[in-house]
């Protein structure tokens, strides 16, 4: 991984990887959507509304994973001055906000027919809403200063402090009473979900993940180009 710590080398790698990653994303989304909307059966309890799960659950997973990218990038920039840390955090944050927005919107559209309400102020829904605001706060701080490094520093501190929200989201369904169902898929137990429903879910999760990877490649390339542009402007000014 250290090979890609060099920004120029990373930019070259990202430029080569982007079309492959984008093609794989499109392919997985095509398969995933067909499985989710056509090939999978309705749930025995939730009927056809279970199909919302295939866009909702992967979005929620990626919302949390993207936050790990933001926090890890911020920590590596703040502690080890890693040149790509700030760039990764800056690139990931709007993508994470997008995933969180999808999770909130689709969750609301699933909650209405299943729970009888669009929204409840319980721990799961509220902590995910807080995640959305953390992303927005992070983006706002990044752009709040004329000097980009000051903004990046303030945003990094917020991102690292906000990581405490992730276990709260994860365990909120176990710690507090809620309308939200607990996790059906856990790392060490057999999934409490039929393969006919699990397969489309995992394919869609794969598609969302590749979408995140593709967008990180594209956005980090853009951020690197912006950084070089700033340096080039400074050189031009210095030369008159």
């Amino acid at each position, binding site marked *: 991984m250290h090979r890609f710590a060099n920004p120029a080398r990373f930019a070259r790698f990202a430029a080569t990887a982007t079309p492959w990653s984008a093609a794989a994303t499109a392919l997985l989304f095509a398969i995933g959507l067909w499985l989710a*909307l056509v090939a999978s059966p309705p749930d025995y309890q939730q009927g*056809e*509304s279970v*199909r919302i799960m295939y866009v909702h659950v992967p979005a929620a997973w990626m919302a949390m994973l993207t936050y790990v990218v933001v926090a890890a990038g911020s920590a590596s920039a703040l502690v080890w001055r890693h040149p790509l840390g700030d760039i990764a955090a800056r690139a990931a944050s709007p993508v994470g906000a997008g995933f969180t927005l999808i999770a909130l919107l689709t969750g609301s*559209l699933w909650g209405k027919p299943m729970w009888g309400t669009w929204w409840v102020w319980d721990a799961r829904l509220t902590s995910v809403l807080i995640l959305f605001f953390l992303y927005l706060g992070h983006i706002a701080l990044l752009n709040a200063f004329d000097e980009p490094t000051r903004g990046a520093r303030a945003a990094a501190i917020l991102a690292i402090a906000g990581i405490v929200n992730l276990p709260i989201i994860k365990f909120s369904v176990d710690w507090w009473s809620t309308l939200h169902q607990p996790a059906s898929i856990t790392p060490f137990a057999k999934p409490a979900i039929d393969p006919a429903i699990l397969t489309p879910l995992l394919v869609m999760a794969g598609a969302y993940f590749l*979408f995140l990877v593709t967008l990180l490649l594209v956005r980090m390339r*853009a951020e690197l*180009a912006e950084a070089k542009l700033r340096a080039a402007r400074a050189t*031009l000014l210095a030369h008159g």
Partner: protein
Amino acid sequence: MESLQRFVEMDGYGGFVWPAYAAAALVLLALWLLSWRALRRSEGALTEMEARLPGRRERSEHAGPARGPA
């Protein structure tokens, strides 16, 4: 035709399922378009700027014809 209507209606849940998919598609598409546009814009501006930099221009002028096929 009837099966298409059944597919759209989703057993009465169509009013929730389709907006959920539309919302997800809209957000993902917007993210992709904005990110791609930002990349094209910043890389375009960088190429233009690098052409104006004195040091780089000299280097590229030297490198150009010397390395080309005779």
